[in-house]
């Protein structure tokens, strides 16, 4: 690891130590509904609410520094000791957050193609007077973007509604490629629910649940089950979302 990267990491470590994260208050089951203004581009069939809240909490804590995070070194690894994720305003049983994946309605997958084009900022990298855009390093690529033209995106959870509401005000878009107009949110609302639907609803899993927490599961797939969802160490054999499930006794008594 080079010196400047180490300095960057130390800067963020220090910043995290100094920040006094507000402790969540009263937890209650809720439902968040996002009304979409444009289709949601995804490269996975769903989004995770705990992942979204963790991302928003980090943005909230770091402010403008969020955009200076070292890109080549995922900060999550350096921050493990600080346990930033322990302080999310969501209920947790064992290691499992009470937060569902997205329920997109209507759910149909469509495809769009965007084109990555040559950009001027690459010029200093070459001494060539002419470049080929048809092949080689500067090739223009046609990139497939699968999208879901959903009208509503619903999440279920259990947590501190006021704190979650504050975080969600920062959401302008959901999913990938929001910079080119995908996944724009027109409005959202939160309402309390009688029951906790964040783990199971109508006998079906609402998020990836490791099989160690299940009494019965119809399917098992190796997928990530806790944030950060990109980290390979968070992958385990899980009952995937929307598969039939019966929770183990320890988890079932907590909902």
């Amino acid at each position: 690891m080079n010196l400047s990267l180490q300095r960057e990491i130390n800067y963020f470590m220090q910043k995290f130590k100094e920040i006094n994260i507000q402790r969540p208050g009263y937890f209650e089951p809720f439902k968040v509904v996002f009304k979409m203004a444009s289709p949601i581009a995804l490269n996975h069939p769903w989004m995770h609410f705990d992942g979204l809240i963790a991302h928003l909490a980090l943005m909230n804590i770091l402010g403008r520094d969020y955009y200076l995070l070292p890109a080549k070194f995922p900060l999550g690894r350096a921050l493990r000791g600080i346990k930033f994720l322990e302080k999310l305003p969501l209920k947790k049983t064992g290691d499992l957050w009470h937060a569902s994946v997205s329920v997109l309605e209507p759910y149909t997958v469509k495809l769009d193609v965007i084109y990555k084009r040559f950009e001027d900022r690459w010029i200093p990298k070459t001494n060539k007077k002419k470049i080929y855009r048809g092949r080689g390093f500067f090739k223009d690529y046609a990139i497939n973007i699968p999208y879901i033209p959903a009208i509503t995106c619903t999440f279920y959870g259990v947590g501190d509604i006021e704190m979650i509401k504050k975080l969600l005000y920062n959401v302008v878009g959901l999913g990938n490629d929001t910079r080119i107009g995908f996944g724009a949110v027109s409005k959202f609302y939160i309402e309390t629910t009688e029951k906790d639907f964040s783990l199971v609803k109508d006998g079906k899993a609402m998020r990836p649940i490791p099989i160690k927490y299940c009494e019965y599961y119809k399917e098992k797939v190796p997928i990530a089950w806790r944030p950060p969802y990109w980290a390979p160490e968070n992958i385990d054999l899980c009952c995937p979302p929307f598969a039939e499930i019966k929770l183990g006794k320890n988890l079932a008594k907590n909902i």
Partner: protein
Amino acid sequence: MEKIWQKTFKLHSKSSDYRGKIKWSLNYIQHALKECRKPYISFSGGKDSIVMTHLIYRIDPEILLYHHHQGEYMPEEIWQEIYSIIKRLAKNIEIRPFEENLWDDIIPDFLRRGFDGSFIGLRKEESVSRRERIKANRSLTELREYWPIQNWTWIDVWAYIIEHNLPYPSTYNKYGPLLGWDKVRFHSFFDPRMDKFGLSNIDGILMWRFRNKK
């Protein structure tokens, strides 16, 4: 496959243009079999290979079908599907493991065993490089290559599959409606070698079950 496409392909299978292409391909295969003493079929598992294999076995069902396993990026479930297709199509089968190299291991072995030609399901329509390769009659290995369906279009291939009720991998039914039946191709999933085709995003949403299986 959607009903509208099945109808379209069925209608196309009645056209004289399509019939002419089958006739040409059968003649080409017969000619190749006269030239070659001991050829084999290169089978990838895709739609073109399936059609070519069926055409060849209409003339000589004893030819060896060779399949090179695509490695860790081909999920076991899909591989089992390919294997069942192979077993339904061919009697004489040889499956080589992914670890073996085509140029260093497989081709020298085939040459040693007296093979002198290979049937490959390339089509001119697929890409400029393939068109040029066929035009120049350029084989990639020391074995002479034959391309029986070189003049076929995507619609001819699907029409032949529908007409003869041939089995094909179920992944086509997933990717076909999204990509279009003209662009859909058989591939391994989450495979960096396939990134140039821009398929990894679609793999993520359609084949998420296989993302962490390798």
